[in-house]
């Protein structure tokens, strides 16, 4: 993703719900041109990385925005996909590494992640509201400690290194440009899928369940199954992001899925906004730019204080994140422009 164009694209995004057009096309053009203008560093460390974390945020946005289930386990699910790739694919840790070909490995890892996600969902949807956040946090933390303690399965503290993206069609997908376009392609696919799903019958049912679970149950819907299926879908997105993440880092260790990372995904999503699927991507760009350049402002040491404070301010001032801020700004500007039009 890019740095500047966002504030301009966001509004177009919003009325895109009514008419497909300008906003999407302009954004697509910028995203396609971006890697040719930007340096390798910007293409991968900012561009691809934001896309990956945007996807993680998207899976959370899908659950939280449409399903009303705030999860802290998205990075855990991504981590499960990542570990699956490291264990069944190739790694340099001399533990496991079955060397499955990518076209078996990727669907398999996504499936495992989606099933794990459905399981987490099944455990957490039995309770409601704020419990979800607690249970998913407990799941995320337990998984982190498990991966760290267990050497037979997860190779403990060091985890797995030397996990490479495959070479397909003669292109090495580890190179900056191909990797960026791979991430972009997958991200767009997920984004459009969420956009479509939110307006499908299933998406509407999910939103209705979020708004009034008892009524939906009374109408004869199997609320639990709907929610578990939503978790399954979120697991697919998080799983894809997890595979990209392990290819991006070339390694996976318990540090990838620690509580800090889990909270990071939540921060990205909340800062971006939970109202529209573009929010998480917006949040990812902001947070990752800050993460990269805050060193110059506050020093690497106190970065967490800065991001924590920004998060607090956003939660206090604008519960809908940057998207919400924009809505507010538009509301301020709108009456004037309306009058001048008439």
């Amino acid at each position, binding site marked *: 993703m890019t740095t500047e164009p966002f504030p301009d694209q966001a509004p177009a995004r919003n009325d895109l719900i009514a008419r497909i057009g300008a906003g999407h096309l302009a954004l697509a053009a910028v995203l396609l041109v971006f890697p040719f203008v930007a340096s390798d560093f910007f293409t991968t460390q900012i561009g691809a990385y934001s896309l990956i974390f945007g996807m993680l945020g998207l899976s959370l946005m899908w659950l939280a925005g449409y399903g009303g289930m705030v999860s802290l386990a998205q990075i855990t699910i991504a981590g499960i996909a990542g570990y699956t790739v490291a264990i069944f694919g190739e790694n340099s840790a001399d533990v496991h590494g079955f060397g499955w070909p990518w076209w078996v490995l990727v669907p398999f890892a996504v499936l495992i992640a989606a099933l794990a996600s459905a399981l987490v969902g099944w455990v957490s949807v039995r309770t409601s509201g704020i419990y979800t956040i607690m249970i998913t946090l407990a799941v995320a933390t*337990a998984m982190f400690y498990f991966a760290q303690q267990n050497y037979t399965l997860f190779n403990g503290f060091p985890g797995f290194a030397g996990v490479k993206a495959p070479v397909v069609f003669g292109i090495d997908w580890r190179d900056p440009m191909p990797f960026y376009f791979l991430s972009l392609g997958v991200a767009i696919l997920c984004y459009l899928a969420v956009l479509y799903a939110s307006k499908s019958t299933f998406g509407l049912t999910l939103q209705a369940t979020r708004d009034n679970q008892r009524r939906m149950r009374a109408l004869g819907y199997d609320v639990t199954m709907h929610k578990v299926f939503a978790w399954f879908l979120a697991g697919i997105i998080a799983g894809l992001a997890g595979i990209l993440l392990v290819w991006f880092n070339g390694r996976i260790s318990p540090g990838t899925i620690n509580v800090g990372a889990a*909270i990071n995904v939540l921060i990205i999503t909340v800062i971006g906004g939970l109202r529209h699927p573009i929010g998480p991507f917006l949040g990812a760009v902001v947070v990752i730019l800050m993460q990269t350049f805050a060193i110059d402002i506050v020093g690497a040491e106190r970065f967490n204080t800065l991001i924590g404070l920004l998060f607090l301010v956003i939660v206090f001032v604008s519960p809908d994140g940057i998207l919400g801020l924009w809505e507010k700004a538009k509301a301020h500007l709108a009456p004037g422009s309306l009058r001048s039009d008439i």
Partner: protein
Amino acid sequence: MNDLRPPDDTLNNAPALTKRQVWIGIAVILALLLAWLVFTPVWPEWVKDILISKKAFVSSILNGLTLAGLYFLVASGFTLVFGLMRNVNLAHGSLYLLGAYVGYEIADLTGYWLLGVAGAFVIVGLLGIVLQVVVFRRLEGDDLRQTLVTIGISIVAADLMLAIWAGGTYQILVPDWLSGTLELPIISAVRSNGSIVYIKYPLFRILVLLAAIAIGIALWLMLNRTRVGMMIRAGVDDREMLSASGINVHAVFAIVFAVGAGLAGLAGVIGGSALSVSPGEDVRYLLASLVVVIVGGMGSISGAAIGALLIGLAEQLGLVYFPTYGIVVTFLIMVVTLAIRPQGIMGSTS
């Protein structure tokens, strides 16, 4: 719903008495089995085949009980705050860690360990009041935003504590009269010459357990025998009605938050003395509180005690018998509880 029922729900399930009798029966059988395992002078061979050695088993049980005491201290504050304010305080682990550091500094400065304990309780408790008044009161009734705010606070707190106390490990020194080991009247082995070897255990850890029990009883008395406790219980059941009866709910909230935060701080000093203090402990104790409270039931002190016992024992027994899968046992307890009783063992169904 009866407004003044005790928060631990003991009177709530009258129709389900038979089911409860079954559970109590199972608990009694388990307790008897445990007592037999602990007090039989020498284990028969087949028991040794399963449980390795009596010494390992008994000390892991004792360690589990100690840890349960610590978990109870941390989780009781968490559950109390949730029960009354519906506020999931994910910064609770940070309060624990802060208490540990504050206790360390005070004990180090004055040389009195007890002052460290008291100081941590008071300072972290006051901080709790500040948090309640400055932050949570503004977001009342908005669960999600309150929770998000506590996450933000925990991030900033962890980072600032790292800035002040750096990444090292601290050990809070226990005064002489609390250290040393105690010989327990439990036989570890009988030597071939007929002399009996008893199990030795650090005195301080036994005191941790006793302190947890004492504080648990004090909390119970406060909740069930005092006026403030009555208000708190009423608030847990119906906040609006309590407020409508002319009671300053915010004062009650502040008291509960102070006690909850103070207990976390106190537990920090005790945990830092029995074990150690280092960054990352906040997450560990937050996880412990979460699981204990999910298993035991939100808002119930007796639930926190039961949950802490289960999790503490599971963790320590897991450490000895399934070394690298220990956390899975804890996790399974949580999942099974959620599957059978989503509201937790002592949780109410409302």
